[in-house]
């Protein structure tokens, strides 16, 4: 068999399924492609260099195309290393259990083993192998490796998968790769659109995959490629324009993502609803249209919602009016329900609902929502003044923030928590300062969501989050790996973003004054829980853990935004009290880092760190010691530089001017360099040694008042 007779070629694998869950779809396609690519690379069918592959999906298929996959893999020798000779044989050359066990584990006789570098080894030569002998197994392995939270079983004897598999397409160039995968024979056909192209689609070559499916009324999505979503959005925009030229669709990224995973042949259909439903607040209409029906609301040129929507269907219907009427008929009762809830909820003052909260569990180990409300009020009362907000307003907001959880509207649409309460409270005469905070209390709901715009909104959001985190840390329900059932990471990420908001592009908020230490915010939250929940755990330790947990989220976000880990760690080592302080130090470091003196200074700080670590344990100098020798000029210069800087830096630091302080400290570079060049630090003379080390220690302490430069990369002395 020669590789020439059978050249490398492009591979196409497609798994035809029943409808896959839309929420998982792009991720499944990505995992499937990566898993198959990994299997092929590990088994040496493709080069392990740059990863070139294309992943595709529709609701009824996952596919991957990989170029340059070998057709024949040349023979290879595998070597399995066993015990050393001393372990393997006794003094008279009889095999010991280690040797026998090694042979048994391989399923061969002892005689089949050879000796290499004083070890027993097993060499096995594998003959050349053709792709079809391995590929079906690799494909099945790739499918089994995809992590799926709930696997479906659908037929006895077939392994489970996320949804039933109906067909396997497997092509290498123009060649069908024969075999069995998940009990199905591989083929070269894919499913077309169920109505527009019910006949199977034959794929002649992997490169024709998209065009062949396009002709069968199937548009392929690709993970991380917005083309399909953009196409659907343009259909939506066009449909809205044709319906009422003065209206335009309101974008919703989540809805667009979802509908793009629900259709193979997207078509947009516009429809309307009676105007009387416009008396519902916009977020309620959006919750009904986007959340429940996965359609896009329409707005007029003043950006007010209009009584219409655009839905995306999977069919070029022969009777579009009927589809429109059908969609309208579903939306109407849902809007009617929402309006009924909205009006019914307002028959009762929001504040009245506080007493119902005692009947709703927060968590069975952490008590009911009435208790949570009491804690939130106490927390907000404690911190309203330091945050500079009106205490009375803050208390009103905190006392109302959970009340809308008992309303019919929020029970039907949990995502309206906050919005609903804000609306009801405003209608019932609460001041706008408080109602705006209610509206903002759950922000940021996601990593992309905007932050609360008012200080009271931020305070309320912090109250909800610190209370949640404190509670679950008290009962030791910390996130573990992928598991985070109570959304604690999201809560901490919100805290990190709110407190670090000056760096957040999503924020339009003005900078507040200096904020209280982060651990203190957590301590207040922890102290809010009764002794029965505490069961004697020290508050300080838990508050420190919560500080670290929040810093983890800050770190993750900083890295995502392209920040450097070492700079983050250089500041984190000092555990700054507030995240504002943290950010100021980090900014100073990042700004001055490109300066050449900075690099030298950082390198020298590493050296100082080593020296101080190596420092011999010196006994203190006795009092009757003769006066120290006169200073060398470089010592004197360093001493003078330190003395000059110490007070200036202290002043700058007290004002939070880290950048100015660090810039001043760059002046240490020259005297320090001269010092290292001219004097021996670890000299035999104990007095001199102590004096010189003390100077270095002063320099280090001074720099450490900003960040631990020893943790920076790129400063190694070579």
């Amino acid at each position, binding site marked *: 068999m020669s590789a020439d007779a059978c050249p490398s070629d492009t591979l196409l694998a497609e798994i035809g399924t*029943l*409808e*896959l*869950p*839309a*929420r998982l779809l792009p991720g499944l396609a990505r995992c499937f492609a990566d898993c198959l690519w990994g299997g092929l690379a590990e088994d040496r069918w493709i080069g392990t260099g740059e990863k070139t592959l294309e992943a595709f999906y529709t*609701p009824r298929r996952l596919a991957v195309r990989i170029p340059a996959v070998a057709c024949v893999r040349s023979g290879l020798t595998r070597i399995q290393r066993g015990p050393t000779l001393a372990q393997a044989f006794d003094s008279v050359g009889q095999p010991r259990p280690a040797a026998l066990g090694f042979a048994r584990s391989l399923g061969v006789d002892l005689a089949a083993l050879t000796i290499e570098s004083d070890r027993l080894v097993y060499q096995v030569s594998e003959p050349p192998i053709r792709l079809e002998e391995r590929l079906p197994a690799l494909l099945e392995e790739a499918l089994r490796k995809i992590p799926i939270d*709930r696997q*479906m*079983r*659908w*037929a*006895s004897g077939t392994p489970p998968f996320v*949804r*039933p598999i*109906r067909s396997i397409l497997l092509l290498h160039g123009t060649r069908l790769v024969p075999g069995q995968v998940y009990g199905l024979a591989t083929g070269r056909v894919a499913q077309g659109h*169920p*109505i*527009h*192209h*019910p006949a199977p689609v034959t794929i002649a070559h992997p490169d024709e995959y998209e065009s062949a499916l396009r002709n069968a*009324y199937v548009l392929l999505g690709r993970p991380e490629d917005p083309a399909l979503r953009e196409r659907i959005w343009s259909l939506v925009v066009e449909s809205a324009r044709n319906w009422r030229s003065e209206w335009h669709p309101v974008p919703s990224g989540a809805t667009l993502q979802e509908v793009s995973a*629900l*259709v193979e042949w997207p078509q947009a259909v516009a429809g309307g609803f009676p105007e009387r439903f416009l008396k519902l607040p916009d977020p309620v209409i959006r919750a009904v249209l986007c959340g429940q*029906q996965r*359609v896009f609301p329409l707005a007029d040129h003043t950006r007010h919602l209009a009584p219409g929507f655009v*839905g995306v*269907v*999977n*069919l*070029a*219907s*022969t*009777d579009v009016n*009927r*589809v429109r*009427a*059908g*969609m309208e*008929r*579903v*939306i*109407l*009762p849902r809007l009617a329900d929402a309006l009924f809830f909205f009006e019914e909820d307002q028959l009762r003052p929001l504040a009245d609902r506080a007493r119902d909260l005692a*009947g*709703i*569990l927060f968590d*069975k180990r952490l008590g009911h929502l009435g208790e949570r409300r009491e804690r939130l009020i106490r927390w907000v009362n404690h911190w309203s003044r330091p945050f500079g907000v009106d205490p009375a307003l803050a208390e009103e907001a905190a006392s109302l923030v959970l009340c809308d959880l008992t309303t019919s509207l929020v029970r039907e649409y949990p995502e309206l928590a906050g919005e609903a309460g804000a609306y009801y409270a405003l209608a019932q005469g609460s001041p706008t300062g408080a109602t705006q905070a209610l509206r903002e209390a759950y922000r940021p709901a996601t990593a992309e969501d905007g932050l609360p715009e008012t200080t009271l909104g931020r305070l309320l959001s912090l109250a909800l989050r610190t209370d949640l985190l404190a509670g679950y840390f008290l009962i030791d329900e910390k996130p573990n790996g992928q598991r985070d059932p109570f959304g604690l990471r999201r809560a901490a990420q919100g805290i990190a973003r709110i407190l670090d908001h000056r760096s957040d592009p999503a924020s339009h908020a003005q900078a507040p004054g200096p904020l209280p230490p982060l651990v203190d915010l957590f301590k207040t939250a922890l102290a809010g829980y009764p002794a029965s929940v505490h069961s004697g755990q020290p508050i300080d330790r838990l508050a420190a853990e919560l500080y670290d947990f929040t810093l983890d989220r800050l770190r993750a976000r900083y890295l995502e935004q392209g920040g450097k880990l070492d700079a983050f760690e250089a500041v984190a080592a000092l555990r700054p009290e507030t995240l504002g302080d943290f950010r100021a130090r980090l900014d100073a470091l990042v700004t001055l880092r490109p300066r050449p003196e900075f690099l030298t200074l950082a390198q020298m700080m590493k050296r100082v760190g080593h020296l101080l670590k190596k420092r011999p344990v010196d006994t203190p100098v006795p009092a009757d010691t003769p006066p120290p020798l006169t200073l060398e000029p470089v010592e004197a210069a360093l001493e003078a530089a330190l003395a000059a800087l110490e007070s200036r830096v202290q002043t700058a630091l007290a004002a939070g001017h880290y950048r100015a302080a660090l810039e001043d400290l760059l002046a240490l570079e020259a005297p320090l360099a001269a010092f290292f060049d001219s004097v021996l630090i670890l000299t035999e003379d104990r007095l001199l040694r102590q004096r010189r080390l003390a100077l270095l220690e002063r320099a280090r302490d001074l720099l450490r008042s900003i960040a631990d430069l020893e943790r920076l990369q790129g400063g190694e002395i070579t």
Partner: protein
Amino acid sequence: MERGILCTPVPQVNAVMAAFQDMVFSLNQFWTGQGCLWIPSYDLPMGAATFHPATFLRALDDQPWNAAFLQPCRRPQDGRYGENPNRGQQYFQYQVLMKPVPENFQDRFLASLDAIGIDRHAADVRFVEDNWESPTLGAWGLGWEVWLDGMEVAQFTFFQQMGGFDCEPVMGEITYGLERLLMYLSGSGDMYELVWGRGAANREIRYGDLFRANEAEMSRFNFEATDPGSLASRFATLETQATALLGQGLLHPAYEQVIEASHVFNLLDARHAVSVSERQRYILRIRKLAQAVAAAYRERPR
């Protein structure tokens, strides 16, 4: 898109059918033609056709089982005194069960839509993830809700567990919501206006003629006239009886107590007589009984 490429429509079995009884007859005819046994509805109030022993018990053994039936269902909480055109405390499910699940189960379901007169070249049919779980039955399944122009008209489920036991082989279940399907077919926005059929003197009888008075009275009963105290004690009695009956090897009577206990719990819930934590306890009590019945059924020699 060029119209010419659209496939020629499949001939409609019953293109103008728009009466409730006719839809049921069509489904009976279709599914018996697919090898399903037609069986009667169960004669106890229940929240869903999953409680029918033909579903719950038959999902637990390893024998093939194809069945189809109409099941009246009750959800006391959903009562609206006959005034809401979309919601009622009683509604009708059409249930199809196939074990093992035929490879083309979905195609058969789509053909059943053709059979009741849905033109799939005009109507947008979609399968949207909807995983089913019944905490009271200790059961869960994976599957879809079926959308017709955005309206959920059916559930399509592959049972994974029933009574806490893995279903092996897996049973497939289709549950049609008949009122919604017919509202779609007739273009009506009011279930009480749906045509049920023709009766004496060839008079057209509507859904509301048959059920609106019942709906209004049953809503009053569910929300206002039941006695939570005696419901709670009835629940306790049913629970004790179920355990005792199982001890005597009376599996089917024991399961009937479970069905009733579940309905009594729903009645209590409709009176808001159950707090959040109590609610969880009630559900666990029913699940424990359902699991005991399931275990007894599986141990029974066949």
